[in-house]
């Protein structure tokens, strides 16, 4: 279970929160001018990267506030949490410090280092 640091309440168990999927997807303002395909992209398509993911959370069993997070979906490490009105952190601030996913060794399925 991930521990999430709600910017309003502090660290709480993930089960207190709900995830809102990809962050920074703006609702189209002039939806009438979009074709079916482009509208479908907004309604049904969200990014699903393995690695750095900008996503939304809401403290649904707490303050009910929405906020954003940057999380490594390969390890579930939360790299940054920021409020909705705060500046979006740049992706290169995370790429250098990213832990490699463990649990995916070259051989076997247990997590171990291969002798060099």
């Amino acid at each position, binding site marked *: 279970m991930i521990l999430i640091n709600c910017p309003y309440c502090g660290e709480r168990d*993930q089960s207190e929160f709900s995830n809102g*999927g990809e962050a920074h997807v703006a609702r189209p303002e002039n939806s009438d001018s979009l074709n079916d395909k482009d509208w479908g992209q907004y309604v049904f*398509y969200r990014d699903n990267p393995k690695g750095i993911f900008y996503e939304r959370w809401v403290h649904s069993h707490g303050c009910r506030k929405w906020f954003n997070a940057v999380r490594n979906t390969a390890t579930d490490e939360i790299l940054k949490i920021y409020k909705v009105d705060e500046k979006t952190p740049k992706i290169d601030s995370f790429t250098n410090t990213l832990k490699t996913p463990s649990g995916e060794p070259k051989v076997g399925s247990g997590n171990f280092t291969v002798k060099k």
Partner: protein
Amino acid sequence: MWKSPRPKKTYDVIVVGGGGHGLGTAYYLAKEHGIKNIAVIEKGWLGGGNTGRNTTIIRSNYLWNESANLYDHSIKLWENLSQELNYNMMFSQRGVMNLAHNEHDIKEMKRRVSANRLNGLDTQWLETKEIKKLVPIMNTDNLRYPVLGAAFQPRGGVARHDAIAWGFAMRADEMGVDIIQNCEAQSIKTRSGKVEGVKTSKGFIRAKKVAVVASGHTSVLAKTAGVRLPLQSRPLQALVSEPIKPIINTVVMSNAVHAYVSQSDKGELVIGAGTDGYNSFTQRGGYDVIEETVRAIVELYPIFGKMKMLRQWGGIVDICPDASPIISKCEIKGLYFNCGWGTGGFKATPGSANVFAHTVANDEPHKINAPFNLERFSDGRLIDEHGAAAVAH
């Protein structure tokens, strides 16, 4: 058994993903469509993804015609698969029961029973006393949400998950399919709207066609070819208990009291948990989900409180907005996807592989999988199985 060849320079078809669906695709491509120059490439080991991680429930009692056709096509293949592959699938048609816990459930399930009947499926409605006869240990009245009835499909059941991967792999291997493990697909190469091949951890492999069946990782690979898929990868967990002598002889699923259980031939209770609500590729979910499932099990079967959880694990499931899969071509010529099975792909393994092979071989969908295209997310012709598939697996 299968050989472990080095990859050739070029193939007619590369199947990405050595799970049941992928190996089955290669098998049917070779057997029914005469394509022999095929490779199946697998990042880890055959059947090590969701094929080896699911609770092996097989049923076809879906609400909509499109789904019923697809899943029943699969059951019919399951019924002959042991003989066809000369490998025991241990397909045990012990019946699958979906419990109703409120008036809304009853209405929804009775509708499903009726729809299934018109689709030629064997689903039937059971009253509580009939449920009690089939599963005497079930607590039907002394719980928060009493059991008010069930939809029951006798032809449903469970099968041995490893067997289908290994069975398809052996027979595909015999027909000349190259099965290459430890070979991670890193990106799909395209040129002017056509597929060229796959860059792998064992080098670039050229291919006329590429069929991606990589469950949780499908959208990651699709992105390398510039294709966007409406998928979200979520953790899904399952667990087994210690083995006991037979006590529950059918598969019981419940939505309101979120628990699915069957008993394996070894005697373990095989229990499916729910998905976590966030994207993750860790093959690991939250403990709270396990707790939620186990308390539902204890609620429905009080004596199981004395049982113990032996092992718990997670997989990565790729979920579609309408809870139905995508078995489809895309805007890149020669690139095909079979994905979005969410929490219930195992049951469809042979059926999905069969129609996907048809799609890849003919560059046209089989009539069974034609509705499971990508266009539905633009034109709105969804196959929304949330009602019926809320009880997934």
